[in-house]
């Protein structure tokens, strides 16, 4: 059980969200979730909402200036 990583730094809307959705769809039962690294603030709104649609809960941590880690895990 581990979190997959996805680095979308440098990309702007809508790509961080589109790439996250693609990666979430590719997760297998072994994967606990997905960790997305982004430096695009609007993605903090778009990624959690699209992830929720696929059944994932989001947790956002600020890891740099500006850089965020969005941890997406299956919501029960």
């Amino acid at each position, binding site marked *: 059980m581990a979190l997959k990583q996805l680095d979308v730094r*440098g990309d*702007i*809307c*809508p790509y961080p969200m589109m790439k996250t959705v693609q990666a979430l769809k590719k997760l297998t039962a072994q994967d606990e979730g997905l960790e997305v690294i982004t*430096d695009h603030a609007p993605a903090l*709104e*778009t990624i959690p*909402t699209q992830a929720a649609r696929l059944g994932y809960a989001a947790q956002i941590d600020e890891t740099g*200036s*500006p850089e965020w880690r969005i941890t997406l895990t299956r919501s029960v």
Partner: protein
Amino acid sequence: MTTNVNKSRSFLQTVANELGYSQGVTLGSRVRAGLAASAAALVILFIAGQFGNQMGLFWTFGLAFGFVLQRSRFCFASAFRDIFLLGHGRTMKGLLIGLVVATLGFALFMSKLVPNPALGILPPDANVLPLGWHMVVGGVLFGIGMVVAGGCVSGSIYRMGEGYVASWVSFGGIMMGLLLAAYSWNWWWDWQISRGPRIWLPTYLGHAGSVIVTLLGLLVVYLLVLWWESRSGMVIPDMPFRGSNEETFAARLGDGLKRIFVHGWPVAIGGAVLGGLNALLFIAAHPWGFTGEVSRWTVGIANVLGIGPGELKGLANLPGCAMDLGGGILHHMLFLVWGMVFGSFIASLFAGEFKIRAPRQKVRYVQAIGGGTVMGYGAGIAMGCTIGSFFSAIPSLALNGWVFALCLAVGAWMGTKIIQRIP
């Protein structure tokens, strides 16, 4: 003496404790960077004022527009694109609120300018533009370009201030597109623009009637967006603001400042403030817009290089963002555009969102330059971008604003199909 000093010191300490500042006040690195940039903006304002009142005024408006655009992440490209890409209209709803506010402000001011619209007089400076195929083609091209490039002209301008390298490239594309539009301007002028009717709704419906029709039109769009959203079965809540748990004055003031400077604004607030600023700018000088100014730089540079488009027909009588070739380097609009870049820069420093960042995939540069060029050409022949031909045109109670908006939507749909094929 000493007792007095001690007394006043202890009094200050008591006040500080009472307000919640017992630890003193420390400014983080973001706040210091933001304050330093704000001070620089003030210095530029002072210098701009030396060249005339208009320069300082437009610099100030530019700063305000840039600040609000950055804080609310107001993006016309996403307003149109997300409807097709995600089936939601959060940004579009914010845009509609902005149009309502601007419409009320514009209408009030225009009713003073032209008390009797039935005589067929058009309000000077309002963005009532000739209708024709140039508006249709320009709108569709602009819609495609803004979605492919990832931002319209105003979006590129405020992201330039946030440090997005691709937005600088997009801006270069926009300048190229405007130059291409200048080369073909006379052809469009002869075929369509010169004989296009300029339809101002108050001529036919009066002021009140035009406002009612415009607001009803916006209401219909709002209801359509809600219906569209209900089909996609998705609710997009705004990110909640989590403030401090403390009850002191210091904590509350800190929360208030964070809400403005750090946490992103709800897009509806951004829309309303931009609509209000647009109305104020119209009252002060003319509606918000900058495509004409960017054309002026482009054609100016081309002339210096000896590849200028030569004489362009009919420009003297066109309002809004039609190509404007007169004036020297120190034009008030120069201060508006760079004020927007600088306002966004200040906002992104306070928020800790400034970073020089470049896309890692080469295809993004192709998108930026290609999308920018297509968008610039569209803005050139439609005599404005999402601001001049849309956000300032619908509130001008001009039919061309609605035509451009509809074509933008068609173009954005086509652009969405394109980006879904680009990994």
